[in-house]
């Protein structure tokens, strides 16, 4: 049986063959297995050199200073480190945080936990297209606001927030700005230096790099520089901000993936924009298909649509042998909550549940798109007939 067409690149991407080859080299070459913290011998120093090279690659890909890169195990950790790190370090300066309802769980969950511990959190509601108005941030800022956390590209709907405008407001007010940019690299322009964010979360596996490695960019351009309480300590790695033996092959993989993304993202994005258009044209022709998220401010890699008159779990069951996509019903059990992101955009429960997220990527081609359109056309019609809708 033919494997399903993979259209879930926003969940994860296959590792680029060049990245995998480089990782394998590092994993197997006896010169590079040392612990980069071992400065008492060449094995350790060779590993440290590789890590510093990768740090430059990642920094260059996002216009950061290599010294601003703190390696982590992924964007989940980066988000937690940013939020906990600022909250704890500046606990005596203030305990108010501002974020948005459409943020990733790795931002929302730490915020909820901080609320339980006495912090206060404002969850801004985006407009129906998923965008925040920077004026909302301005209005929400209080004397005790220490942190604003707003994502760059939303992982469900692809909507891009105006980070530069938000950063200007935060700087003026003296609050730190954290940006979850896990979905940005390789999909749109990203300039850490220019955008004005103080902290930025990155992940390798969304950009054809390995799972289990990411970074938190910690700006050095503001004075005084931002400080963080570490999430994990003991060993002093990463300037005390993130202890733990660095995984050389992982970090090298992230560096290679980011370097490739920096080279190819523009061409990728143009090609993928055409695929996305083709997909949307095909799907909207089915009728009763609603697009989620403001199409004027989204990355081309994501298309999120709701299908009227079909039930979410059945929709997924009907198509999953042919296409691999993500659904608005996070889990397919009866207790599934429909996507909180779509709910925040004002979609009702049914339309939130009957949504599919198409994540296009480097491997996607026209044939994939046409296959997706054809199975959806067939199955949406069939389910609507069965549902009498």
């Amino acid at each position: 049986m033919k494997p399903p067409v993979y259209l879930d690149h926003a969940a994860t991407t296959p590792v680029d063959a060049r990245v995998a080859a480089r990782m394998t080299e590092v994993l197997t070459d006896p010169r590079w297995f040392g612990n980069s913290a071992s400065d008492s011998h060449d094995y350790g120093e060779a590993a440290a050199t590789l890590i510093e090279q990768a740090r430059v690659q990642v920094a260059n890909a996002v216009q950061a200073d290599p010294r601003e890169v703190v390696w982590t195990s992924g964007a989940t950790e980066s988000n937690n480190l940013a939020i906990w790190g600022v909250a704890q370090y500046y606990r005596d300066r203030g305990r108010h945080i501002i974020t948005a309802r459409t943020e990733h769980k790795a931002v929302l969950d730490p915020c909820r936990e901080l609320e339980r511990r006495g912090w206060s959190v404002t969850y801004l509601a985006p407009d129906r297209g998923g965008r925040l108005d920077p004026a909302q941030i301005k209005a929400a800022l209080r004397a005790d606001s220490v942190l604003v956390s707003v994502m760059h590209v939303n992982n469900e709907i692809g909507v891009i927030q105006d980070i530069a405008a938000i950063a200007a407001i935060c700087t003026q007010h003296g609050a730190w700005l954290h940006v979850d940019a896990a979905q940005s690299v390789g999909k749109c322009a990203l300039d850490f230096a220019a955008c004005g964010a103080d902290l930025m979360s990155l992940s390798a596996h969304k950009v054809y790099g390995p799972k289990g490695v990411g970074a938190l960019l910690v700006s050095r351009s503001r004075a005084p520089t931002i400080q963080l309480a570490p999430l994990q300590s003991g060993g002093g790695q990463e300037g005390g901000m993130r202890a733990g033996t660095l995984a050389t092959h992982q970090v090298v993989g992230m560096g290679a993936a980011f370097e490739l993304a920096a080279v190819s993202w523009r061409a990728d994005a143009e090609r993928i924009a055409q695929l996305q258009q083709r997909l949307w044209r095909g799907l909207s022709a089915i009728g009763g298909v609603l697009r989620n998220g403001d199409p004027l401010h989204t990355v081309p890699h994501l298309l999120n649509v709701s299908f009227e008159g079909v039930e979410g779990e059945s929709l997924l069951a009907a198509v999953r042998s042919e296409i691999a996509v993500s659904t608005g019903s996070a889990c397919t059990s009866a207790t599934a909550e429909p996507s909180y992101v779509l709910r925040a955009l004002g979609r009702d429960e049914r339309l939130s549940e009957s949504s599919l997220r198409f994540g296009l990527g480097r491997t996607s081609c026209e044939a994939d798109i046409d296959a997706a359109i054809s199975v959806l056309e067939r199955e949406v019609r069939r389910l609507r007939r069965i549902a009498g809708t």
Partner: protein
Amino acid sequence: MKYSELTRRYFESATRAGTLPDAFRGAAGQREQGTWVQFDVQINAAAIADARFLAFGCPHTLAVAAWLAETSVGTPLRRDMAESAAALRERFAVPVEKLGRLLIVEDAWRAALSAAIDSAAPDPMSGEGRVKDA
């Protein structure tokens, strides 16, 4: 979610999805709540001559409704389903959290059959729940 072979088969084929003219109809649930089921049954003397279903819901709901419609044809009229909701849950390996959905299927079935049975005696052609034009 993994579905049993049987669930998959009935969900995919969905034989007897649709409506019937001159049939007794029963429905339960609400699409807005995520599950809605409707049965149309045509009767012939004291037996089910034909049955159709419509369903908005999860694969288990669709499969059970499809199975009920299919296997009921030729069976004598009775309000209850041929198998209890609990038995159907086992037959289709439905997770226990979804029992409520099977009860909606049952309600729809009983509504259709009750309409048929209650109106069967005096004048089957004018009973409540009678579909004039489907």
